Protein backbone atom coordinates (compact mmCIF):
# COMPACT_ATOMS: atom_id res chain seq x y z
CA UNK A 1 0.00 0.00 0.00
CA UNK A 2 1.29 3.48 -0.86
CA UNK A 3 1.86 5.80 2.07
CA UNK A 4 -0.25 8.96 2.20
CA UNK A 5 2.91 11.00 2.72
CA UNK A 6 6.43 9.90 2.03
CA UNK A 7 9.67 11.82 2.32
CA UNK A 8 12.91 10.23 1.15
CA UNK A 9 16.37 11.72 1.61
CA UNK A 10 15.26 15.33 1.98
CA UNK A 11 18.14 17.81 2.17
CA UNK A 12 17.99 21.59 2.31
CA UNK A 13 20.56 24.21 3.19
CA UNK A 14 20.26 27.95 3.56
CA UNK A 15 23.74 29.21 2.81
CA UNK A 16 26.09 27.45 5.21
CA UNK A 17 23.24 26.29 7.44
CA UNK A 18 22.12 22.71 6.80
CA UNK A 19 18.46 22.98 7.84
CA UNK A 20 17.42 19.46 6.89
CA UNK A 21 19.86 16.62 6.36
CA UNK A 22 18.67 13.39 4.77
CA UNK A 23 15.21 13.28 6.35
CA UNK A 24 13.11 10.25 5.47
CA UNK A 25 9.80 9.11 6.92
CA UNK A 26 6.30 8.22 5.85
CA UNK A 27 2.77 8.57 7.18
CA UNK A 28 0.14 5.94 6.47
CA UNK A 29 -3.38 6.94 5.45
CA UNK A 30 -5.68 7.71 8.37
CA UNK A 31 -2.87 8.19 10.88
CA UNK A 32 -2.14 11.20 13.02
CA UNK A 33 1.61 11.59 12.98
CA UNK A 34 3.31 13.89 15.45
CA UNK A 35 6.34 15.62 14.00
CA UNK A 36 8.44 16.69 16.94
CA UNK A 37 11.56 18.67 17.38
CA UNK A 38 12.94 21.68 19.20
CA UNK A 39 12.81 25.11 17.56
CA UNK A 40 15.14 25.18 14.58
CA UNK A 41 15.21 21.39 14.22
CA UNK A 42 14.02 21.52 10.60
CA UNK A 43 10.30 20.82 11.05
CA UNK A 44 9.03 23.84 9.16
CA UNK A 45 11.58 23.39 6.37
CA UNK A 46 10.41 19.81 5.92
CA UNK A 47 6.72 20.74 5.90
CA UNK A 48 7.25 23.72 3.62
CA UNK A 49 9.16 21.47 1.22
CA UNK A 50 6.27 19.03 1.26
CA UNK A 51 3.96 21.89 0.29
CA UNK A 52 6.34 23.15 -2.43
CA UNK A 53 6.92 26.44 -0.61
CA UNK A 54 10.61 25.55 -0.36
CA UNK A 55 12.68 23.88 -3.05
CA UNK A 56 14.83 21.13 -1.55
CA UNK A 57 18.44 20.53 -2.57
CA UNK A 58 17.80 16.78 -2.76
CA UNK A 59 15.18 14.20 -1.93
CA UNK A 60 11.75 13.05 -3.00
CA UNK A 61 8.48 14.16 -1.46
CA UNK A 62 5.38 12.19 -2.31
CA UNK A 63 1.66 12.53 -1.69
CA UNK A 64 -0.13 9.25 -2.37
CA UNK A 65 2.79 8.23 -4.56
CA UNK A 66 2.82 11.49 -6.55
CA UNK A 67 5.96 13.60 -6.52
CA UNK A 68 4.85 16.98 -5.19
CA UNK A 69 7.13 18.89 -7.53
CA UNK A 70 6.45 16.85 -10.67
CA UNK A 71 2.71 16.49 -10.10
CA UNK A 72 2.21 19.52 -7.92
CA UNK A 73 -1.34 20.30 -8.98
CA UNK A 74 -2.71 16.80 -8.38
CA UNK A 75 -0.68 16.26 -5.24
CA UNK A 76 -1.63 19.53 -3.56
CA UNK A 77 -5.28 19.02 -4.45
CA UNK A 78 -5.20 16.25 -1.83
CA UNK A 79 -3.49 18.28 0.86
CA UNK A 80 -4.73 21.01 3.16
CA UNK A 81 -2.31 23.00 5.25
CA UNK A 82 -2.04 25.38 8.13
CA UNK A 83 1.54 26.55 8.35
CA UNK A 84 2.54 28.25 11.60
CA UNK A 85 0.44 31.20 12.64
CA UNK A 86 -2.71 31.72 10.60
CA UNK A 87 -2.31 35.04 8.78
CA UNK A 88 -5.17 36.32 6.67
CA UNK A 89 -6.27 39.34 4.66
CA UNK A 90 -7.38 41.63 7.46
CA UNK A 91 -9.90 43.47 5.33
CA UNK A 92 -11.87 40.34 4.43
CA UNK A 93 -14.56 38.57 6.44
CA UNK A 94 -14.19 34.89 7.35
CA UNK A 95 -16.60 33.85 4.59
CA UNK A 96 -14.96 36.14 2.01
CA UNK A 97 -11.58 34.68 2.99
CA UNK A 98 -12.80 31.19 2.17
CA UNK A 99 -14.42 32.44 -1.05
CA UNK A 100 -11.20 34.11 -2.10
CA UNK A 101 -8.98 31.13 -1.29
CA UNK A 102 -11.31 28.76 -3.13
CA UNK A 103 -10.32 30.54 -6.34
CA UNK A 104 -6.74 29.28 -6.03
CA UNK A 105 -7.73 25.65 -6.39
CA UNK A 106 -9.29 23.52 -9.07
CA UNK A 107 -12.15 22.12 -7.05
CA UNK A 108 -15.25 24.31 -6.99
CA UNK A 109 -16.51 24.98 -3.47
CA UNK A 110 -20.12 25.96 -2.81
CA UNK A 111 -21.09 28.60 -0.28
CA UNK A 112 -22.98 25.99 1.74
CA UNK A 113 -19.76 24.02 2.23
CA UNK A 114 -17.98 27.15 3.38
CA UNK A 115 -20.71 27.83 5.92
CA UNK A 116 -20.57 24.20 7.05
CA UNK A 117 -16.84 24.50 7.60
CA UNK A 118 -17.25 27.72 9.55
CA UNK A 119 -19.86 26.00 11.67
CA UNK A 120 -17.58 23.01 12.13
CA UNK A 121 -14.82 25.19 13.54
CA UNK A 122 -17.27 27.23 15.60
CA UNK A 123 -17.15 30.43 13.58
CA UNK A 124 -20.59 30.43 11.95
CA UNK A 125 -21.67 33.45 14.00
CA UNK A 126 -18.61 35.38 12.82
CA UNK A 127 -18.86 34.44 9.14
CA UNK A 128 -19.39 38.04 8.08
CA UNK A 129 -17.05 39.66 10.62
CA UNK A 130 -13.74 41.04 9.39
CA UNK A 131 -10.74 38.85 10.21
CA UNK A 132 -9.00 41.86 11.80
CA UNK A 133 -11.50 41.60 14.67
CA UNK A 134 -10.60 37.93 15.34
CA UNK A 135 -8.56 36.65 18.26
CA UNK A 136 -5.57 34.43 17.45
CA UNK A 137 -7.59 31.37 18.47
CA UNK A 138 -10.36 32.30 16.02
CA UNK A 139 -7.79 32.86 13.29
CA UNK A 140 -6.30 29.43 13.93
CA UNK A 141 -9.77 27.90 13.65
CA UNK A 142 -10.35 29.77 10.40
CA UNK A 143 -6.95 28.38 9.39
CA UNK A 144 -8.31 24.86 9.89
CA UNK A 145 -11.46 25.76 7.89
CA UNK A 146 -9.41 27.03 4.94
CA UNK A 147 -7.24 23.91 5.07
CA UNK A 148 -10.39 21.77 4.74
CA UNK A 149 -11.93 23.90 2.00
CA UNK A 150 -11.27 21.47 -0.87
CA UNK A 151 -11.94 18.43 1.32
CA UNK A 152 -8.38 17.10 1.27
CA UNK A 153 -7.64 13.71 2.77
CA UNK A 154 -4.29 14.88 4.16
CA UNK A 155 -3.75 17.76 6.55
CA UNK A 156 -0.40 19.30 7.34
CA UNK A 157 -0.54 21.34 10.51
CA UNK A 158 2.59 23.19 11.50
CA UNK A 159 2.55 24.40 15.10
CA UNK A 160 -1.23 24.97 15.05
CA UNK A 161 -1.29 25.97 18.73
CA UNK A 162 1.31 28.70 18.37
CA UNK A 163 0.18 31.87 20.08
CA UNK A 164 -2.89 30.28 21.65
CA UNK A 165 -3.90 30.56 25.29
CA UNK A 166 -4.49 27.29 27.22
CA UNK A 167 -8.19 27.29 26.30
CA UNK A 168 -7.35 27.81 22.65
CA UNK A 169 -4.82 24.99 22.80
CA UNK A 170 -7.44 22.60 24.13
CA UNK A 171 -9.89 23.69 21.41
CA UNK A 172 -7.26 23.13 18.73
CA UNK A 173 -6.33 19.74 20.15
CA UNK A 174 -9.97 18.67 20.11
CA UNK A 175 -10.30 19.91 16.52
CA UNK A 176 -7.29 17.85 15.47
CA UNK A 177 -8.69 14.78 17.20
CA UNK A 178 -12.05 15.23 15.49
CA UNK A 179 -10.35 15.65 12.12
CA UNK A 180 -8.46 12.43 12.60
CA UNK A 181 -11.03 10.30 14.38
CA UNK A 182 -14.34 11.60 12.95
CA UNK A 183 -13.32 12.64 9.45
CA UNK A 184 -10.57 10.06 9.00
CA UNK A 185 -8.01 12.57 7.76
CA UNK A 186 -4.33 11.74 7.60
CA UNK A 187 -2.62 14.38 9.71
CA UNK A 188 0.99 15.38 9.97
CA UNK A 189 1.11 17.54 13.07
CA UNK A 190 4.26 19.43 13.83
CA UNK A 191 4.84 20.80 17.28
CA UNK A 192 7.43 21.43 19.91
CA UNK A 193 4.80 20.97 22.62
CA UNK A 194 5.29 17.31 23.45
CA UNK A 195 2.23 16.90 25.62
CA UNK A 196 0.02 18.10 22.77
CA UNK A 197 1.39 15.49 20.36
CA UNK A 198 1.31 12.71 22.91
CA UNK A 199 -2.40 13.23 23.42
CA UNK A 200 -3.41 13.05 19.76
CA UNK A 201 -0.79 11.22 17.71
CA UNK A 202 -0.71 7.57 16.66
CA UNK A 203 2.86 7.72 15.41
CA UNK A 204 5.63 10.21 15.75
CA UNK A 205 8.82 11.34 14.13
CA UNK A 206 11.42 13.19 16.16
CA UNK A 207 13.77 15.47 14.29
CA UNK A 208 16.81 17.14 15.79
CA UNK A 209 19.38 19.34 14.08
CA UNK A 210 17.90 18.50 10.70
CA UNK A 211 17.98 14.71 11.15
CA UNK A 212 15.32 12.19 12.09
CA UNK A 213 16.50 10.62 15.30
CA UNK A 214 13.59 8.31 15.99
CA UNK A 215 10.19 7.38 14.60
CA UNK A 216 7.44 4.87 15.20
CA UNK A 217 4.10 4.35 16.97
CA UNK A 218 3.82 6.60 20.02
CA UNK A 219 3.03 3.74 22.40
CA UNK A 220 5.97 1.64 21.19
CA UNK A 221 8.35 4.54 21.62
CA UNK A 222 7.02 5.36 25.04
CA UNK A 223 7.22 1.80 26.31
CA UNK A 224 10.68 1.32 24.85
CA UNK A 225 12.29 3.58 27.41
CA UNK A 226 11.80 4.56 30.98
CA UNK A 227 8.55 6.25 31.85
CA UNK A 228 8.10 8.54 34.81
CA UNK A 229 5.47 7.17 37.17
CA UNK A 230 4.06 8.93 40.18
CA UNK A 231 2.66 6.56 42.79
CA UNK A 232 0.59 7.99 45.65
CA UNK A 233 -0.10 6.08 48.82
CA UNK A 234 -1.69 6.67 52.19
CA UNK A 235 0.81 8.32 54.52
CA UNK A 236 3.47 5.72 55.22
CA UNK A 237 4.98 5.21 58.70
CA UNK A 238 8.73 5.87 59.11
CA UNK A 239 9.63 2.17 59.38
CA UNK A 240 7.89 1.43 56.06
CA UNK A 241 9.85 4.19 54.35
CA UNK A 242 13.03 2.79 55.91
CA UNK A 243 12.16 -0.67 54.55
CA UNK A 244 11.55 0.97 51.19
CA UNK A 245 15.01 2.59 51.25
CA UNK A 246 16.61 -0.79 51.91
CA UNK A 247 14.76 -2.45 49.04
CA UNK A 248 15.98 -2.52 45.42
CA UNK A 249 13.35 -0.05 44.28
CA UNK A 250 15.03 3.22 45.46
CA UNK A 251 17.53 3.02 42.58
CA UNK A 252 14.70 4.09 40.34
CA UNK A 253 13.28 6.79 42.61
CA UNK A 254 13.42 10.39 41.44
CA UNK A 255 11.79 11.78 44.58
CA UNK A 256 10.24 10.38 47.70
CA UNK A 257 7.78 11.72 50.29
CA UNK A 258 5.65 10.08 53.02
CA UNK A 259 2.63 10.19 50.65
CA UNK A 260 4.23 9.10 47.37
CA UNK A 261 7.21 8.75 45.10
CA UNK A 262 8.23 9.37 41.51
CA UNK A 263 9.91 6.48 39.66
CA UNK A 264 11.76 6.02 36.38
CA UNK A 265 10.73 2.61 35.06
CA UNK A 266 10.11 1.10 31.63
CA UNK A 267 6.39 0.99 31.02
CA UNK A 268 6.40 -2.82 30.90
CA UNK A 269 7.84 -2.93 34.45
CA UNK A 270 5.11 -0.80 36.05
CA UNK A 271 3.05 -3.84 37.20
CA UNK A 272 6.17 -5.31 38.89
CA UNK A 273 6.82 -1.99 40.60
CA UNK A 274 3.29 -1.89 41.96
CA UNK A 275 3.51 -5.50 43.17
CA UNK A 276 6.76 -4.69 44.97
CA UNK A 277 5.25 -1.63 46.64
CA UNK A 278 2.16 -3.56 47.73
CA UNK A 279 4.42 -6.37 48.96
CA UNK A 280 6.30 -3.90 51.15
CA UNK A 281 2.99 -2.82 52.69
CA UNK A 282 2.31 0.52 50.93
CA UNK A 283 -1.41 1.30 50.56
CA UNK A 284 -1.33 2.59 46.97
CA UNK A 285 -4.12 5.06 46.10
CA UNK A 286 -3.12 6.33 42.64
CA UNK A 287 -0.69 5.63 39.80
CA UNK A 288 0.05 8.34 37.25
CA UNK A 289 2.38 8.28 34.26
CA UNK A 290 4.04 11.65 33.92
CA UNK A 291 5.99 13.59 31.29
CA UNK A 292 6.99 10.40 29.57
CA UNK A 293 7.26 11.82 26.06
CA UNK A 294 9.17 14.77 27.39
CA UNK A 295 11.63 12.41 29.04
CA UNK A 296 11.93 10.31 25.94
CA UNK A 297 12.47 13.40 23.84
CA UNK A 298 15.13 14.80 26.14
CA UNK A 299 16.88 11.46 26.33
CA UNK A 300 16.90 10.93 22.58
CA UNK A 301 18.04 14.45 21.76
CA UNK A 302 20.76 14.21 24.42
CA UNK A 303 21.93 10.94 22.85
CA UNK A 304 21.92 12.58 19.43
CA UNK A 305 23.98 15.49 20.74
CA UNK A 306 26.47 13.08 22.32
Amino acid at each position, binding site marked *: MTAALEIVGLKKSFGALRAVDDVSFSVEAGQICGFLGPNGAGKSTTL*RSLLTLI*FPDAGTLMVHGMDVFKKRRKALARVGALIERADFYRYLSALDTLRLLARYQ*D*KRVERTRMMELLKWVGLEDRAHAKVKTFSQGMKQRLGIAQALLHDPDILILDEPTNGLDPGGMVDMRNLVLRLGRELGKTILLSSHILNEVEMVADTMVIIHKGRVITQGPVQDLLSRDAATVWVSWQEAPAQLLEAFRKSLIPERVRQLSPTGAEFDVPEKDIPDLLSALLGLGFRVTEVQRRRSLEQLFLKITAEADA
Partner: protein
Amino acid sequence: MLKILSAELRKIFLRGRTYIGFAAVAVIVLGVELAIWLEGSKMLNFVTNDLQRYFFLDGRPINGFLTTYMVLNALWVHVPFLVALVTGDLLSGEAAAGTFRLILTRSAGRGKVALAKFLAGLVYVYLLIALMAALSLGLGYVFFGSGDLIVLKKTINIIPPDDVLWRFAGAFAFGALSMTTVAALSFLFSTMADNSIGPILGTVAVIIVCTIFSSLNFGFFKVLRPFLFTTHMTGWRLFFDFEPSWEVVLRSACILLAHILLFLGISLWRFKTKDILT
Protein backbone atom coordinates in the same frame (compact mmCIF):
# COMPACT_ATOMS: atom_id res chain seq x y z
CA MET B 1 -6.61 31.76 -14.60
CA LEU B 2 -9.70 33.99 -14.66
CA LYS B 3 -10.67 32.79 -11.17
CA ILE B 4 -7.26 33.77 -9.82
CA LEU B 5 -7.35 37.09 -11.68
CA SER B 6 -10.73 37.94 -10.14
CA ALA B 7 -9.35 37.06 -6.69
CA GLU B 8 -6.35 39.29 -7.24
CA LEU B 9 -8.53 42.15 -8.48
CA ARG B 10 -10.68 41.76 -5.41
CA LYS B 11 -7.61 42.01 -3.18
CA ILE B 12 -6.37 45.16 -4.96
CA PHE B 13 -9.69 46.96 -4.90
CA LEU B 14 -10.55 46.09 -1.30
CA ARG B 15 -7.46 47.83 0.00
CA GLY B 16 -7.27 51.47 0.98
CA ARG B 17 -3.82 51.98 -0.54
CA THR B 18 -5.29 51.47 -4.04
CA TYR B 19 -7.53 54.49 -3.67
CA ILE B 20 -4.62 56.70 -2.64
CA GLY B 21 -3.55 56.47 -6.28
CA PHE B 22 -6.97 57.50 -7.62
CA ALA B 23 -7.25 60.31 -5.07
CA ALA B 24 -3.75 61.51 -5.93
CA VAL B 25 -4.55 61.61 -9.65
CA ALA B 26 -7.67 63.65 -8.90
CA VAL B 27 -5.58 66.04 -6.78
CA ILE B 28 -2.91 66.33 -9.49
CA VAL B 29 -5.51 67.14 -12.16
CA LEU B 30 -7.38 69.60 -9.95
CA GLY B 31 -4.10 71.19 -8.86
CA VAL B 32 -2.99 71.74 -12.45
CA GLU B 33 -6.42 73.12 -13.41
CA LEU B 34 -6.38 75.48 -10.43
CA ALA B 35 -2.84 76.64 -11.14
CA ILE B 36 -3.74 77.39 -14.76
CA TRP B 37 -6.91 79.16 -13.74
CA LEU B 38 -4.94 81.38 -11.34
CA GLU B 39 -1.69 81.86 -13.24
CA GLY B 40 -2.38 80.55 -16.75
CA SER B 41 -2.47 83.92 -18.54
CA LYS B 42 0.78 85.09 -16.96
CA MET B 43 2.41 81.78 -17.78
CA LEU B 44 1.27 81.87 -21.39
CA ASN B 45 2.38 85.47 -21.82
CA PHE B 46 5.79 84.58 -20.47
CA VAL B 47 6.15 81.58 -22.77
CA THR B 48 4.80 83.28 -25.91
CA ASN B 49 6.32 86.69 -25.25
CA ASP B 50 8.55 86.64 -28.32
CA LEU B 51 5.79 85.27 -30.48
CA GLN B 52 3.38 88.02 -29.45
CA ARG B 53 5.76 90.71 -30.69
CA TYR B 54 5.09 89.59 -34.22
CA PHE B 55 1.76 87.77 -34.04
CA PHE B 56 -1.60 88.33 -32.51
CA LEU B 57 -2.85 85.27 -30.61
CA ASP B 58 -6.54 84.92 -31.32
CA GLY B 59 -9.09 82.60 -29.66
CA ARG B 60 -8.67 80.80 -26.36
CA PRO B 61 -5.05 79.70 -25.93
CA ILE B 62 -5.72 78.55 -22.36
CA ASN B 63 -8.16 75.71 -22.80
CA GLY B 64 -8.94 72.17 -21.71
CA PHE B 65 -6.43 70.69 -24.16
CA LEU B 66 -3.59 72.75 -22.77
CA THR B 67 -4.44 71.73 -19.20
CA THR B 68 -4.60 68.06 -20.26
CA TYR B 69 -1.23 68.39 -21.96
CA MET B 70 0.21 69.78 -18.73
CA VAL B 71 -1.37 66.98 -16.70
CA LEU B 72 0.33 64.46 -19.00
CA ASN B 73 3.65 65.69 -17.65
CA ALA B 74 2.80 63.95 -14.38
CA LEU B 75 3.69 60.73 -16.21
CA TRP B 76 7.36 61.51 -15.55
CA VAL B 77 7.56 60.88 -11.81
CA HIS B 78 4.25 61.33 -10.00
CA VAL B 79 2.22 58.63 -11.70
CA PRO B 80 5.11 56.11 -11.67
CA PHE B 81 5.19 56.49 -7.90
CA LEU B 82 1.44 55.85 -7.69
CA VAL B 83 1.86 52.82 -9.95
CA ALA B 84 4.70 51.42 -7.82
CA LEU B 85 2.60 51.96 -4.69
CA VAL B 86 0.33 49.12 -5.78
CA THR B 87 2.40 46.98 -8.15
CA GLY B 88 5.44 47.01 -5.86
CA ASP B 89 3.25 45.51 -3.16
CA LEU B 90 1.69 42.74 -5.25
CA LEU B 91 4.10 39.99 -4.19
CA SER B 92 6.05 41.58 -1.37
CA GLY B 93 2.80 42.50 0.41
CA GLU B 94 1.79 38.83 0.51
CA ALA B 95 5.25 37.91 1.77
CA ALA B 96 5.06 40.54 4.50
CA ALA B 97 1.57 39.47 5.56
CA GLY B 98 2.49 35.77 5.54
CA THR B 99 -0.42 35.02 3.19
CA PHE B 100 1.69 33.19 0.59
CA ARG B 101 1.29 30.21 2.90
CA LEU B 102 -2.43 30.33 2.16
CA ILE B 103 -2.40 30.67 -1.60
CA LEU B 104 0.75 28.85 -2.68
CA THR B 105 -0.13 25.66 -0.82
CA ARG B 106 -3.12 25.20 -3.15
CA SER B 107 -3.23 23.59 -6.54
CA ALA B 108 -2.90 26.82 -8.55
CA GLY B 109 0.63 27.08 -9.95
CA ARG B 110 3.02 29.84 -8.95
CA GLY B 111 3.37 31.05 -12.54
CA LYS B 112 -0.38 31.52 -12.85
CA VAL B 113 -0.59 33.29 -9.51
CA ALA B 114 2.23 35.67 -10.44
CA LEU B 115 0.81 36.38 -13.88
CA ALA B 116 -2.68 36.99 -12.45
CA LYS B 117 -1.18 39.40 -9.93
CA PHE B 118 0.63 41.30 -12.65
CA LEU B 119 -2.49 41.48 -14.84
CA ALA B 120 -4.55 42.67 -11.88
CA GLY B 121 -1.89 45.32 -11.27
CA LEU B 122 -2.20 46.41 -14.91
CA VAL B 123 -5.97 46.79 -14.53
CA TYR B 124 -5.25 49.23 -11.71
CA VAL B 125 -2.64 51.05 -13.81
CA TYR B 126 -4.97 51.42 -16.80
CA LEU B 127 -7.83 52.61 -14.61
CA LEU B 128 -5.47 55.19 -13.15
CA ILE B 129 -4.52 56.41 -16.63
CA ALA B 130 -8.16 56.34 -17.76
CA LEU B 131 -9.17 58.40 -14.74
CA MET B 132 -6.36 60.83 -15.46
CA ALA B 133 -7.50 61.19 -19.08
CA ALA B 134 -11.19 61.50 -18.25
CA LEU B 135 -10.66 63.99 -15.42
CA SER B 136 -8.17 66.18 -17.22
CA LEU B 137 -10.07 66.33 -20.51
CA GLY B 138 -13.49 66.52 -18.82
CA LEU B 139 -12.66 69.14 -16.19
CA GLY B 140 -10.44 71.02 -18.63
CA TYR B 141 -13.29 71.30 -21.10
CA VAL B 142 -15.79 72.30 -18.38
CA PHE B 143 -13.53 74.95 -16.84
CA PHE B 144 -11.61 76.24 -19.84
CA GLY B 145 -13.50 75.12 -22.93
CA SER B 146 -11.98 74.07 -26.23
CA GLY B 147 -9.41 75.76 -28.48
CA ASP B 148 -6.11 75.34 -30.28
CA LEU B 149 -3.47 73.44 -28.38
CA ILE B 150 -0.19 75.36 -28.22
CA VAL B 151 2.73 73.03 -27.56
CA LEU B 152 6.26 74.28 -27.09
CA LYS B 153 8.79 71.83 -28.41
CA LYS B 154 11.73 72.65 -30.68
CA THR B 155 9.07 74.56 -32.60
CA ILE B 156 5.83 76.06 -31.42
CA ASN B 157 3.12 73.69 -32.57
CA ILE B 158 -0.38 75.06 -32.77
CA ILE B 159 -2.77 72.15 -33.16
CA PRO B 160 -6.41 72.87 -34.05
CA PRO B 161 -9.17 71.30 -31.87
CA ASP B 162 -10.37 68.92 -34.60
CA ASP B 163 -6.86 67.46 -34.84
CA VAL B 164 -6.14 67.05 -31.14
CA LEU B 165 -8.28 64.29 -29.68
CA TRP B 166 -6.59 61.40 -31.50
CA ARG B 167 -3.27 62.80 -30.32
CA PHE B 168 -4.44 62.66 -26.69
CA ALA B 169 -5.75 59.14 -27.24
CA GLY B 170 -2.34 58.13 -28.60
CA ALA B 171 -0.47 59.98 -25.84
CA PHE B 172 -2.50 58.37 -23.06
CA ALA B 173 -2.16 54.95 -24.70
CA PHE B 174 1.59 55.45 -24.91
CA GLY B 175 1.55 56.68 -21.31
CA ALA B 176 -0.20 53.44 -20.37
CA LEU B 177 2.62 51.49 -22.05
CA SER B 178 5.20 53.54 -20.12
CA MET B 179 3.38 52.86 -16.87
CA THR B 180 3.22 49.15 -17.75
CA THR B 181 7.02 49.26 -17.87
CA VAL B 182 7.08 50.89 -14.44
CA ALA B 183 4.62 48.27 -13.17
CA ALA B 184 6.83 45.45 -14.55
CA LEU B 185 9.90 46.97 -12.89
CA SER B 186 8.26 47.33 -9.49
CA PHE B 187 6.79 43.84 -9.87
CA LEU B 188 10.31 42.52 -10.41
CA PHE B 189 11.49 44.26 -7.25
CA SER B 190 8.44 42.88 -5.50
CA THR B 191 9.68 39.32 -6.12
CA MET B 192 12.92 40.15 -4.33
CA ALA B 193 11.57 41.68 -1.14
CA ASP B 194 9.51 40.63 1.84
CA ASN B 195 8.13 44.12 2.44
CA SER B 196 6.61 46.66 0.07
CA ILE B 197 8.72 49.70 0.98
CA GLY B 198 11.81 48.37 -0.81
CA PRO B 199 10.14 47.73 -4.19
CA ILE B 200 8.31 51.09 -4.15
CA LEU B 201 11.41 53.12 -3.27
CA GLY B 202 13.60 50.95 -5.52
CA THR B 203 11.36 51.62 -8.50
CA VAL B 204 11.31 55.37 -7.93
CA ALA B 205 15.08 55.39 -7.41
CA VAL B 206 15.73 53.48 -10.65
CA ILE B 207 13.43 55.84 -12.57
CA ILE B 208 15.18 58.91 -11.17
CA VAL B 209 18.69 57.54 -11.85
CA CYS B 210 17.80 56.34 -15.34
CA THR B 211 16.06 59.65 -16.14
CA ILE B 212 19.27 61.46 -15.20
CA PHE B 213 21.30 59.06 -17.37
CA SER B 214 18.80 59.58 -20.20
CA SER B 215 19.43 63.28 -20.09
CA LEU B 216 23.25 62.93 -20.29
CA ASN B 217 23.95 63.04 -23.98
CA PHE B 218 27.68 62.42 -24.10
CA GLY B 219 30.26 59.63 -24.02
CA PHE B 220 29.12 56.33 -22.53
CA PHE B 221 25.71 57.75 -21.67
CA LYS B 222 25.11 58.61 -25.30
CA VAL B 223 25.56 54.92 -26.15
CA LEU B 224 23.44 53.80 -23.21
CA ARG B 225 20.66 56.36 -23.67
CA PRO B 226 18.69 54.69 -26.48
CA PHE B 227 18.40 51.48 -24.45
CA LEU B 228 17.12 53.02 -21.23
CA PHE B 229 13.38 52.72 -20.76
CA THR B 230 13.25 56.18 -19.22
CA THR B 231 14.43 57.66 -22.53
CA HIS B 232 11.30 56.25 -24.15
CA MET B 233 8.82 56.80 -21.33
CA THR B 234 8.27 60.31 -22.62
CA GLY B 235 7.36 58.97 -26.05
CA TRP B 236 3.81 60.26 -25.56
CA ARG B 237 5.16 63.71 -26.43
CA LEU B 238 5.82 62.53 -29.99
CA PHE B 239 2.08 62.60 -30.58
CA PHE B 240 2.16 66.38 -30.33
CA ASP B 241 4.62 66.85 -33.20
CA PHE B 242 2.97 68.29 -36.27
CA GLU B 243 3.73 65.12 -38.17
CA PRO B 244 4.53 62.44 -35.58
CA SER B 245 7.33 60.16 -36.74
CA TRP B 246 5.64 56.77 -36.52
CA GLU B 247 8.97 55.06 -36.90
CA VAL B 248 10.25 56.73 -33.73
CA VAL B 249 6.97 56.06 -31.89
CA LEU B 250 7.12 52.40 -32.88
CA ARG B 251 10.79 52.07 -31.92
CA SER B 252 10.13 53.60 -28.49
CA ALA B 253 7.11 51.35 -28.00
CA CYS B 254 9.16 48.28 -28.95
CA ILE B 255 11.94 49.19 -26.52
CA LEU B 256 9.39 49.65 -23.72
CA LEU B 257 7.77 46.35 -24.66
CA ALA B 258 11.16 44.62 -24.58
CA HIS B 259 11.75 46.02 -21.08
CA ILE B 260 8.31 44.83 -19.97
CA LEU B 261 8.97 41.31 -21.26
CA LEU B 262 12.43 41.27 -19.70
CA PHE B 263 11.24 42.48 -16.29
CA LEU B 264 8.22 40.18 -16.33
CA GLY B 265 10.27 37.19 -17.48
CA ILE B 266 12.82 37.64 -14.69
CA SER B 267 9.98 38.18 -12.19
CA LEU B 268 8.24 34.95 -13.17
CA TRP B 269 11.47 32.95 -13.11
CA ARG B 270 12.44 34.46 -9.77
CA PHE B 271 9.04 33.87 -8.20
CA LYS B 272 8.77 30.32 -9.49
CA THR B 273 12.11 29.37 -7.95
CA LYS B 274 11.86 31.37 -4.76
CA ASP B 275 11.72 29.74 -1.33
CA ILE B 276 8.76 31.06 0.62
CA LEU B 277 10.08 31.53 4.14
CA THR B 278 7.61 34.07 5.55
